[in-house]
């Protein structure tokens, strides 16, 4: 039986306010459904906002859940820069 492909890794370009700070922001995303590991790196800092790269790894990442988690913290996804999808054969 061939399984449905699932998202294993995704890199997002996100614009967020200064608060919550990056460690708290990352901790909250990792608590989201499907995320096992999150890596956040700061790309640019502005007066009110920060541009960050968010790498999310998991077994079955639901992009909509991740988006909802990110938007709940007042941040917005600018673009989905990388996606890694796999399926068991």
């Amino acid at each position: 039986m061939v399984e449905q492909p699932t998202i294993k890794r995704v890199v997002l370009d996100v614009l967020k306010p200064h608060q919550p700070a990056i460690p708290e922001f990352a901790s909250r995303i990792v608590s989201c459904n499907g995320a096992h590991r999150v890596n956040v790196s700061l790309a640019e800092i502005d007066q009110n906002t920060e541009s960050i790269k968010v790498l999310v790894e998991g077994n079955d990442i639901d992009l909509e859940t991740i988006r909802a988690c990110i938007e709940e913290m007042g941040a917005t996804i600018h673009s989905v820069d990388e996606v890694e999808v796999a399926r068991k054969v």
Partner: protein
Amino acid sequence: MEKYLEKFRFYLRLTGVSAISRRYFVMNTFDGALIALGVIIGAWTSGPVQPRTIIGAGLGVSLAMGISGFSGTYFVERAERLRKLEELEHSLLMDLHHSVHVKAQRTAMIWAALVNALSPSLAAVIAIMPFVFAHYGLISINEAVIISLMLIFSVLFMIGVYLGKISRERVIISGIRIMIVGIITAAIIMLLGNI
């Protein structure tokens, strides 16, 4: 309960209201203590006074300070925080109404208002407590005045200690410094009351 407390702490961190409420707490406890000092010494030096009068005046002042503190702070914080939210929405080009920011800012407004309301009232209530005992005849009015002054100076000393802890200075010196302000205020009121 733990979950709500964690959420509450997260909201305080998010809005940075802790530092502001610390300032409100110190300023208003100081205000409350000095106002109570004014009411008590002013009444005492003006001539014979019933404990009931001081309790009534003290509670009235405490209630008025509480209501004024809550409403004033709530409206000021609301205006400032709504403006901040709007600026953030403008920078992010998104509506933040479904984000934690709105809930956090609302919590911060109420928290700051509560701190501002309760701190002066609490100081004033502590100061008039001995007069309740005097009212029931457990102590004399002069004893009540002395105990009340001691309580007020202790509150002022504690404020100083707290400020000393924040600024990482010597807490005893900081406590005495604030207490001296209370002693000078008491001396001026006594001097004016005797004229």
